[in-house]
């Protein structure tokens, strides 16, 4: 059984945001809207600082809280574990936006829920998502979580640390953060300043 998943090696992420731009052009996301966002964390006092960039997008959870709350069945999970929204069925009621414990969904200007699709149209053609392909440092890996030889399994196996965000939600996210400098939750404790609605959260 295929279970698509992604990993991001935070040791390699430079915060260049090329993935955000690649996602927007690949998926024709409207200006002013974003499927990916960056969280910048800085801890300490000058000159003793530690920092990290963390890209965030839909985690394609295995126990997705967004799926059962959808009244029309617009939000669904494919057999390969990709969580998608059918715009034709979506009424824009925002139940899924509220249910997502990670705040990864938004209402598009066309009135339906939008979010990262793991570029399933590319995956169907045996290509990796646009964010993975464009990453200049190779921080991202994608593939089948059930296949030990897949790039994502290899990346996780080689990492010093691997974790998902807020595992206590029980949602079982399938985006793995590798080699984080901070313990899970530290980043969330930072005072966050939302610069634009989805794209950037600064220290």
């Amino acid at each position, binding site marked *: 059984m295929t279970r698509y998943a992604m990993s991001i090696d935070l040791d390699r992420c430079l*915060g260049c945001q090329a993935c955000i*731009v690649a996602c927007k052009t690949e998926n024709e996301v409207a200006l002013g809207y974003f499927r990916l966002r960056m969280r910048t964390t*800085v801890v300490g006092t000058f000159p003793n*600082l530690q920092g990290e960039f963390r890209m965030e997008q839909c985690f394609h959870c295995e126990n997705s809280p967004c799926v059962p709350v959808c009244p029309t069945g617009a939000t669904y999970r494919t057999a390969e574990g990709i969580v998608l929204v059918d715009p034709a069925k979506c009424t824009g009621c925002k139940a899924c936006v509220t249910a997502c414990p990670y705040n990864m969904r938004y209402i598009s200007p066309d009135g339906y829920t939008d979010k990262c699709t793991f570029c399933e149209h590319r995956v169907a053609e045996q290509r990796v998502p646009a964010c993975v392909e464009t990453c200049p440092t190779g921080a991202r890996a994608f593939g089948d979580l059930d296949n030990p030889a897949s790039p994502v399994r290899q990346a996780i196996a080689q990492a010093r640390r691997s974790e998902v965000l807020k595992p206590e939600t029980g949602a079982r996210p399938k985006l793995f953060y590798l080699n984080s400098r901070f313990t899970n939750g530290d980043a969330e404790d930072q005072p966050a300043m939302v610069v634009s609605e989805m794209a*950037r959260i600064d220290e």
Partner: protein
Amino acid sequence: MITGKPYPIKGLIAYGTNLFHTLPNVPRTKEALKNLDFVMAVDTLPQDHVAWADVVLPEATYLERYDEFAVIGHKTPFISLREPAVEPYAQTKPAWWIVRELGIRLGLEDFFQWKTAEEYLNRRLSSLGTNLEKMRGEGGVIVQKGKAWLEDFEKENSSPFATESGKVELYSAALEKSKSKPLPEYEAPTEPPAGYFRLIYGRSPVHTFSRTTNTPLLSELYPENEVWINAEVAAQLGFKNGAYVYLENQDKARSGPIKVKATQRIRKDAVFMVHGFGHDAPGLKRANKRGASDAALQTRYALDPISGGAGLRVNFVRLVRDA
């Protein structure tokens, strides 16, 4: 251009270079431009200096034109091709066309023994025994075998370093001969006056120089620059994160409004801003008047006595609340 010495300069062609953001001391650049009889600008965007030109020749963007080959002589040398993906927008023209047409009109047609960019590029490629069609087939890049390591040079009994010793020279005999300091000597920089901060500048990863701040996809990621100031200093002075201030330098040059970013990521005696903002160009609809320009605050610069390189981090600014 200002003094007319050693000889007078009467005309200038600015090609793809924003004169008011690339160079420090903007008032002096403007004074120099006023002394010219003729200014021509070739650009893809209505940049700040373009409004100062007598003649503007709008250029096609990089996705709409052929350009000269990029010939890269690194450890693995390569030649890469730029070719149009789409037709040029409206009346814009590629640079090769602009130069050739100007040349012909000036009676210099002998220097342009080709009619199209393809013809010109093919003639250059013929020296390698290849052509554009083959190059496209190889993905638009011709990779050549380089000398990657010092051993590759040593095998030929040569050196990659153009020094007398054939080595990397920490102590330069050539500089000593020319009566310059053979070893760099540390000179302490001038400290900022009380109440002022050293103005340092750098890049945002999403922008390239001052030329992408009007690009929709990049503008929405980083629409305006901020003045970074040490969080403790900002608290002492009462400057809040996100508040707009003006920057005034030691020569009373004043910037437009810029947001305060109080952060631990900077030392206490300096402020930082991302280069390339604070455009004064109404044609740049997204970038016009967004953020502040570091170049406008760099009324002073220091020249390296050996290389002539300009050091621009020698200006001091203070944060001012009111315009």
